[in-house]
């Protein structure tokens, strides 16, 4: 549905986006993740035809963003970084205006506006001036504008910015509910957003793609899901030796002593259930006590920091 191939965008001598490629299959949600200034907004502006690419090929809904920009515009809904709202308009007249420039047929206009107001829970404020609404409301107005013409593709630049925690959950739920029917790209630097809403993730840093995968694969690939944290009550050095001998354990790293004579270790293992059983048996056999045995999953946060700092060091 969305294909980005070797996209380059420069601003004078500055290269904001440097040969990035990714694709978004129909009906899936892609999270575009990266620190501030990584090139997320620039990429989105190219995808939405607001900015032409300097090089590379970008197609949205089968149309080229340079040669068939007008067709692309008909198929996208776009929430820019700053919600594009007119402060001196009432919400309802704003949506009527958007409906007109978005080519919604006159006879369907009122119904569609009602639906979207309902969907984003804005019905109560429809007669108020947008300039008088709070930041969270304005962000939702921006979202309403993007959804109004029921586009196949949604491009959302930080959709939950400025919202309170409850609203964030609602908007994420809304976005999630659109998956399958719509193809969505959302950018964010908030990691839980990606793990809770997206199918796939592309991490960009300084204009380059540093990782692209499904959300589960990405965190698994970096940890292997094979690291265990163990807390055992017993003589530290002896425990360490015994654990190292367990079947399937390749390395033991002491993490320090806890109170009451317990020690913590990080074990690299083959990840099988047998290994975990072996560790348990080993502790029981030596008459020590097992306080904790848990897999260490690297959170997306850690993956992100690891990927982006690795890039920085090179």
């Amino acid at each position: 549905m969305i294909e980005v191939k070797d996209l380059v965008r420069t601003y004078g001598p500055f290269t904001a986006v440097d040969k990035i490629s990714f694709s978004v299959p129909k009906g899936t949600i892609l999270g575009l993740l990266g620190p501030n200034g990584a090139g997320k907004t620039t990429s989105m502006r190219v995808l939405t035809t607001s900015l032409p690419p300097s090089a590379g090929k970008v197609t949205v809904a089968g149309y080229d963003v340079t040669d068939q920009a007008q067709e692309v515009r008909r198929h996208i809904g776009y929430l820019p970084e700053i919600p594009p709202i007119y402060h001196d308009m009432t919400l309802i007249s704003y949506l009527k205006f958007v409906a007109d420039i978005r080519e919604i047929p006159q006879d369907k206009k009122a119904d569609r506006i009602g639906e979207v107001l309902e969907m984003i829970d804005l019905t109560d404020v429809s007669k108020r001036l947008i300039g008088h609404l709070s930041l969270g409301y304005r962000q939702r107005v921006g979202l309403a504008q993007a959804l109004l013409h029921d586009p196949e593709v949604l491009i959302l630049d930080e959709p939950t910015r400025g919202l309170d925690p409850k609203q964030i959950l609602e908007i994420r739920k809304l976005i999630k509910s659109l998956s399958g029917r719509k193809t969505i790209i959302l950018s964010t630097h908030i990691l839980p957003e990606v793990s809770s809403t997206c199918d796939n993730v592309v991490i960009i840093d300084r204009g380059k793609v540093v990782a692209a995968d499904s959300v589960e694969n990405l965190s698994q690939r970096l940890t292997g899901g094979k690291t265990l944290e163990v807390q055992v009550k017993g003589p530290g050095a002896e425990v360490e030796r015994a654990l190292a001998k367990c079947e399937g354990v390749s390395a033991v790293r002491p993490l320090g002593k806890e109170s009451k004579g317990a020690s913590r270790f990080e074990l690299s293992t083959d990840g099988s259930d047998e290994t975990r059983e072996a560790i348990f048996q080993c502790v029981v056999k030596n008459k020590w006590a097992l306080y904790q045995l848990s897999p260490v999953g690297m959170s997306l946060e850690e993956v992100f920091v690891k990927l982006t700092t690795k890039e920085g060091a090179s």
Partner: protein
Amino acid sequence: MSLSWNKIWALAKKEIGYYFASPVGYLVLAAFFFVTGLFFALIVLGSRAASMVPVFQNTVILLLFLTPGITMRLWSEEEKSGTAELLRTSPLTLWEIVLGKYLGVCVFFAVMLSATLVYLLVIVLNGNPDWGPLFANYLGYVLVSLSFFALGLFVSTLSDNQMVSMVLTWVLLLVLWIVGATGNLMTGPVGDFLKSLSIYDQTDDFFKGVIDLTHVLYFLSLIFIGLFFSVKVLESKRS
């Protein structure tokens, strides 16, 4: 290139709505009503002549000062508030955007001009005006105003700062206004050329009641140039 009337009108309505929702619109209307009313009362009623010429001739300079206030925000504001992004990524052509905004200003001007209909009524009820010259007066006045607006719209596309747009519009209109005066100081083809550029010199005949096609063409060209370069500037922003 096909233009959608629906979309142009939607944009125009938005601009009109702005003028009637903001103090700027009412200030402009108030200034215009007050000054034209004053001139009408003092001159026309004083001279007892059934003519709008003194009103138009004396207030055309007022338009020069009001225009920047009317047009400065047209594009600058869209760029500043981020709404330009909405217009750029909607299925609108640049001509639709420019014409929509221009039409909005024209409708607002029509409201301004409606005040003069009251003066006209006074003249018609109390005197016997010459309709031919009166029409020429109106035509000249409208053409000057529409040229000002087109140039103001163009200047507004150049900056995302309304104040910069306002000052630049003033400078541009003033230059076009006084270039004839400098032409008067020179002799030969250069002087004639400068005079032919001057808005002031081009309006003269209209207020004498004469419609000269070259003057009409002069103003239509100004309007076209203003709109055309607005489109070109917006186009360059997409690169």
